């Protein structure tokens, strides 16, 4: 057990830090959260800079256009970019963390050549068409149909909670290609262009008042069969590849950010006298300890991934997500305690964060589903009927 970084890793960190110090002051101001075209341009601009500096797709394999960095280097990258206040991956989230790695792992040479470079260059944005109104936690019960018609699939149905749908060029879409098969076996993974005739996007407002995600209606949308990734009816397995990436690496920067937020809360509590309240002070102390431990758990999981073949994060990601999503909500409830009545003022940055933290126990598999995964796949408890 060793927490020291190798010389090579320290070099990598130093070079990255120097680059961030040079390039971040040149960045334009961040757009407002509701300005989606502005957000797209901003996020893609950042991606382009990463690309030009050789940091795009750091953790992607080299033959997919990435840098083939080790999980530890990726960890350092996420830690340093967050520390320096660099833009979040934003609109490129699905492309860089879901669709891209899936295509890299499962796509044909032609598919990789078509879709991966534009993601890395910051030319194209992807969104995720997985959930449906009747298929959220029970994702495999999805009903959007794709029927073969010559060289095309003809798709009819609807999707929901589609993040970045308004500005996406492509959608990683799960469709049912065999309604007669058992529910996990009749699903296929398609790449659908968002400007295809028959695609309608209707933004949904979140409880935070912003439009983070959308509903998507698909009315006889035609997608060429050649744009299917993986075999027909094999989409569930392909999807599991995608989700394992999501659960392993999605929160590194956020843990760093939460620890910084705790420091700001302590300063503020000290300044206005609330620090003298032992109940609040102890709560902040406990959270500091918890987020420290979550950072160590991240390093543990990354080290484990580094030792495993292919560096694909394991199921321990569910343990992390469960602990982290609840700690994050606790953090912002504590922030509200520090702020007092000021926590009712939406202009206080922490208040929007408090609202958005409510999604963490729901998105990417609810805490209840994650607990089932932990109980059944890690602890080996029997499946319920």
């Amino acid at each position: 057990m060793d927490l020291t970084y190798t010389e090579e890793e320290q070099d990598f960190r130093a070079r990255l830090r120097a680059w961030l110090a040079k390039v971040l002051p040149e960045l334009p101001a961040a757009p407002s959260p509701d300005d989606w075209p502005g957000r797209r341009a901003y996020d893609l601009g950042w991606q382009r800079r990463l690309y030009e500096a050789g940091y795009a797709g750091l953790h992607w394999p080299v033959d997919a256009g990435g840098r083939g960095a080790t999980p530890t280097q990726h960890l350092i990258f996420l830690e340093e970019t967050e520390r320096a206040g660099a833009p979040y991956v934003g609109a490129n989230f699905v492309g860089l963390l879901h669709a891209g790695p899936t295509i890299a792992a499962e796509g044909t040479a032609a598919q990789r050549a078509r879709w991966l470079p534009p993601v890395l260059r910051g030319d194209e944005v992807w969104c995720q068409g997985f959930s449906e109104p009747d298929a959220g936690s029970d994702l495999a019960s999805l009903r959007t149909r794709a029927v073969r018609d010559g060289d095309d699939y003809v798709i009819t149905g609807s999707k929901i909670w589609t993040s970045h749908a308004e500005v996406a060029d492509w959608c990683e879409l799960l469709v049912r290609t065999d309604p007669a098969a058992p529910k996990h076996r009749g699903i296929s993974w398609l790449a659908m262009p968002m400007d295809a005739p028959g695609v309608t996007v209707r933004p949904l407002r979140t409880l935070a008042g912003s439009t983070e995600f959308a509903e998507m209606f698909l009315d006889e949308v035609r997608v060429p069969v050649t744009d299917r990734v993986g075999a027909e009816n094999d989409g569930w397995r392909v999807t599991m590849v995608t989700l394992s990436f999501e659960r392993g690496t999605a929160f590194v920067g956020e843990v760093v950010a939460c620890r910084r937020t705790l420091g700001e809360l302590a300063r503020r509590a000290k300044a206005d006298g609330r620090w003298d309240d032992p109940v609040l002070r102890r709560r902040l102390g406990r959270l500091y300890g918890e987020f420290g431990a979550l950072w160590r758990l991240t390093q543990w999981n990354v080290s484990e991934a580094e030792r495993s073949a292919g560096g694909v994060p394991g199921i321990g990601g569910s343990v992390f997500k469960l602990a982290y999503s609840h700690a994050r909500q606790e953090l912002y409830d504590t922030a509200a305690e520090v702020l007092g009545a000021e926590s009712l003022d939406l202009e206080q940055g922490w208040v929007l964060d408090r609202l958005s933290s409510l999604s963490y126990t729901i998105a990417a598999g609810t805490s209840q589903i994650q607990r089932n995964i932990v109980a059944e796949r890690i602890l080996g408890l029997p499946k319920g009927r």
Partner: protein
Amino acid sequence: MDFQPTEDQRDLRAGVRDLLAGRYGRDALRASVDSGVSVDRALWRELGEAGFFALRLPESEGGVGLGLPEAVLVFEEAGRALVPGPLVATHLAAGVVPGAAAGTAVVSAFDLGGPLVAHLGDADAVLGASGVPAGEPVRSVDPLTPLHRVAVAGDCSAHREEGALLTAALQLGSALRTVELAVRYAGEREQFGQPIGAFQAVKHLCARMLVRAEVARTAVYAAAVTGDAGEVAAAKLLADEAAVRGARDCLQVHGGMGFTWEADVHLHLKRAWVRSEQWRTAAQAEELLAQELLGSAG
């Protein structure tokens, strides 16, 4: 960075687990509960011979020459097996109190932050005091941790960090063990025509236990690697919680059986309560962490 146990560390842990399974299995545990003998001198010497207490003494002083990470892995196993006795204090006394390193002496400590001292009746020495003070026996909640009330005050703050960390490791082992006990019972016990572990309510109890234990595990291991005071405090805080709440959830999974003397769950819970009061309580850990947080915020 490679934050995973080395092969030697894995082997050490496995070796200690085998040793304790053979020497202090379930029957031995229940026998000591029945007899009320909490410190078995023969076992103590065997632990000494296996290097349990001399683990971190330099080889030049007859020790094994290993570090805190190895000690934490060994103590995790002792916590899993619920080995009774002042393991942490005797380990800390190795090289200071004659016989401690070899396990021929039993050493307790003023680690309960007040007038209570554990295992006083068996102790040859008490860390933080000169000699063994007189004490009045107290009815202890844990059948295998006898307590005495003493009139003198002792100070073992010099050992606080290491004592807290090794106690956290014991808690971690206990927490991981209660997950196993709960999962095994939930897989065997049938109600409504199926194992209770198939019910989501039971599953979620078990999953929560594992999540707490795994977070505590990384906190304990990290603290052992860095030796940082804040990380040690966090490790103790999280391991105490994982052990106490883990035992309570395990008891709940066992249903009525869990409320019996016959089930081992209460032994884990009671020991976890004792350890929560040793070296550094939750309140003390949270205060220390709060001060560190404020310091880091500048």
